């Protein structure tokens, strides 16, 4: 029922507070399933946050980040109605993207 990223962007002080929840299993490649088979690595390697198409966060992630990562960040500026986008890329080439408007 929900997209793969849920985002909230709110003006706070002289900046904008962004919160995002990404749906991703973040498998390390080290875990085994019930039958003892190794579960293949599958984790987000890159995350981008843009504000009106300008990059405000460009991050490299690894296998140490938890499943369903929750991201919180602030950037200076922003006004109501501006578009904030969050996107990720994982080690298998899979991507996820979501956007919201600042409120």
């Amino acid at each position, binding site marked *: 029922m929900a997209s793969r990223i849920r985002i909230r962007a709110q003006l706070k002080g002289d900046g904008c507070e962004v919160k995002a929840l990404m*749906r991703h299993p973040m498998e390390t490649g080290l875990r085994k399933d019930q039958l003892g088979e190794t579960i293949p690595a599958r984790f987000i390697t890159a995350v981008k946050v843009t504000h009106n198409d300008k990059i405000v966060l460009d991050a490299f992630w690894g296998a140490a980040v938890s499943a369903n990562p929750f991201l919180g960040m602030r*950037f200076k500026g*922003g006004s109501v109605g501006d578009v904030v986008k969050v996107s990720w890329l994982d080690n298998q080439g899979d991507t996820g993207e979501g956007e919201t408007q600042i409120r």
Partner: protein
Amino acid sequence: MISWCAGILSSLLLLLAPLWAWAQQDGIFDEYRAMFGDDNPAVFVIDEGEELWFSKAGPNSTSLEGCDLGLGAGVVEGAYAQLPRYFADTDRVQDVESRLEHCMIELQGKTREEIHAKPYSLRGDLGTEMEALVAWLAEQSRGLAIAPGQAHPSERSSYELGEQLFYFRAGPHDFSCATCHGQSGKRIRLQSLPDLTAHEGAAEAYSSWPAYRISQGIVRTMGWRMRDCFRQQRMPELIMGSEAAVALQTYLAVNAAGATMAAPGLKR
């Protein structure tokens, strides 16, 4: 170059997997919890619940705005905190989930089968409508005192049955709720166990559900908590909103009465 878009990163919080094992120890979980500050991923689920409440759905294309949760049709503020309670129209004591089910059937024309097909998420799911609605309704009672109904005879007998069920030992392991939750200061592995027969333990537990379970990435409800405890007791599956589910929640809510609702909480 737009200057107000400087992109200065002032805070970045990531949940780190190695913290998991430590998170199970209470003191350390508290520290871990503090790292979140006011952040709780449940905010997204609460928003969804609000949208669901007001959106037209089901064969009747009707919203849930006409649903009476005990304080009158459409009154959501404080409604969660006064459940479970007796409803004359159904002649039953109901918890939030069985009452929502009633409204989905009566107002929206949904069937019992579709509501019960998957009321709670399975591992890897993104959340169910029931979970989102309950999360939002609990949010509407945040800061209010837990005050379940106990004036009607059915409400009192629900409590008494709940108490019987709490001590009901059955299944191959002879477990009851009381096996784990009948004493204070105990734990399973590293998981500490509230004493649900006493006010303090019941208040701590009841006020913090529904909750965002970090380890599952999902909001879980008190009804799910009951079902999953029975799974661990090696018992069959508890039906959402069933009389036993309601009776046990009545038992907990009455034991917790007077405490302040703080849900949706954030749990391991």
